[in-house]
């Protein structure tokens, strides 16, 4: 019986491993490729070198692109988190006709094809003359990431006991102070989780940014994508990507440890 149990577990784990290999292999390969000493990746690699990491740290072009991505990511996160949190609060604390419709509306960007949206948006931006501006890019990213913020905050608020707010009120806290002392401290893990998600979504966005991004605000993934579509990937970007992914995974693990974010998404 015990043996049978162990056998089942082994098969089970092997099956799970397939999923994990499919998911992780490409990322692992990028790590490998970043240590290649050739100008292009091929397997088996011809040798080991850190030259691309050195190039990555010396390249101001990529530093610029990365800082643009960082800036856009932070601003888009601020916008979509604020809008998403407020909307989720309103949706979770009141009932009105058309609520389901508004909820669907706010989640719509999850389902609609981004590539076509970007082309429509480009024309509307041109008409409003905000094409190529930081504002335009941030708004676009905010619109894309809003559904994540709304979803995560909706579930966060649904876990927030409303009587806590009532209790604070009866103890003399004005609505503003209820928010500051009770609501915010209790929802911050959710806020951080959705901030993480919105930021990463924005930081990695390609499809829309390729068309929307202006010259001054050319994000890192757009650079990567254009390289991939023209002369070929500069191995420097592979080194940078490998570092980014490593950082992101470390952050994700820390986030999981302290925020349990995987349970909130």
């Amino acid at each position: 019986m015990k043996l049978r149990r162990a056998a089942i577990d082994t098969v089970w784990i092997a099956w799970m491993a397939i999923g994990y290999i499919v998911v992780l292999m490409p990322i692992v390969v990028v790590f490998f490729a970043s240590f290649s000493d050739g100008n292009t990746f091929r397997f088996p690699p011809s040798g080991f070198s850190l030259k691309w990491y050195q190039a990555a740290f010396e390249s101001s072009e990529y530093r610029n692109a990365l800082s643009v991505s960082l800036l856009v990511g932070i601003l888009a996160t601020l916008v979509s988190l604020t809008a998403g949190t407020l909307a989720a609060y309103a949706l979770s604390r009141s009932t009105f006709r058309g609520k389901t419709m508004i909820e669907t509306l706010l989640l719509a960007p999850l389902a609609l094809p981004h590539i076509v949206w970007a082309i429509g948006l480009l024309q509307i931006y041109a008409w409003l003359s905000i094409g190529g501006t930081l504002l335009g890019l941030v708004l676009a990213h905010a619109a894309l990431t809003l559904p994540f913020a709304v979803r995560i905050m909706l579930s966060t608020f649904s876990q927030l006991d409303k009587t806590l707010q009532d209790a604070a009120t009866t103890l003399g806290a004005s609505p503003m102070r209820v928010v500051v002392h009770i609501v915010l401290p209790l929802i911050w893990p959710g806020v951080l989780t959705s901030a993480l998600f919105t930021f990463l979504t924005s930081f990695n966005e390609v499809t829309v940014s390729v068309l929307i991004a202006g010259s001054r605000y050319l994000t890192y993934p757009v650079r990567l994508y254009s390289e991939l579509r023209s002369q070929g990937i500069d191995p420097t970007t592979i080194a940078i990507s490998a570092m980014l992914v490593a950082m992101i995974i470390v952050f994700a693990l820390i986030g999981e440890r302290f925020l349990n974010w995987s349970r909130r998404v």
Partner: protein
Amino acid sequence: MTDHGDNQQGRNLTSAYLSISGMAKAYRGTPALKSVDLDVNEGEFVALLGPSGCGKSTLLRLVAGLLEPDEGTITLADQRIGHLPAYKRDIGLVFQNYALFPHMTVARNVRFGLDMRNMPRAEAETRVADALALVKLEHLAARMPSELSGGQQQRVALARAIAIRPRLLLLDEPLSNLDAVLRASVRTELRELHARTGLTIVMVTHDQVEAMTMADRIAVMSDGEVLQHDTPQQIYEQPASDFVAKFVGTPPAAMLQVDRKIDGRFAVGDTIWSPSPELEAVLAPIQRVAVALGLRPDHLALTSADAPHALPATIRTVEYLGAERLVHVEAGGQMLVIRLSADEPVVTGAVGVAIVKSPPVFDLTTGLRLGRAG
């Protein structure tokens, strides 16, 4: 039945500490409260008693200011507070689930209301200590709520509500989340606390034992209305309606339908029955074809089947409760309960039930009390 409580006559608007009048509230067109009037005197402990959904919690939240009434006024200590937002009312509320702030220590929870009043730190600390001492939890001040037992959480919630020296303390089902053993001791503690602090307390409960044992006065509510607002004794002995009679008491009053035949005799089911002269005197002036007698166990005695004025009955079950026994009998197709002391012998077989005390009489259709002695 009138829309208003029993105490309507002789009500003095200015003397009541808390005065609720014409309070009405509907949720999406469904009325939860239908024009409720209620007065509470200073220092009084009042229980709002009723089954779930009767509107008692709605009334409590309206008083606290957590809900806005559709109609009606609230006066507290001669001040109209209906327009005040909840956070300016100085009314303490202990929630059914305690609603302790999970991210704050016990001490910070208790101090919260004081911080909201911008009280100087030193003074606030003293008050927190006092409040915690009152509920005997000084030693747990540094704990987080998640580290406390249910009973301890309840006392923290109480301390937190008391620390702000509220003008009125509201308790929402304070005992419902406690186990049976704890419930009895907390009942006594709350009584004592009331005595020590002199606070005016309004408590919501669906448990009539809690209401009877703790409150100075009870407002029995049903279906968005206050049926009777009176002392526990009056509620028990002089219920204003069959609902009150059936809701209060352990076991509750049994309703015995008594028909009056065309020839003036009385009948219970198919059995012709002649009531005792005292009872007949009560029943005679009531011009009804049928009435209901609200019979509590102590209204009744077990006799032999052929005793005068006795109702022929059959014993169904006997409940042994230690000091006493409850005998369930069937008379004329209706169930009655009689209380016997444990050493009293139980007669078996065909027995008789004697009505030894005049019971309240209710209208069969409206449920209202009939022929009350002036």
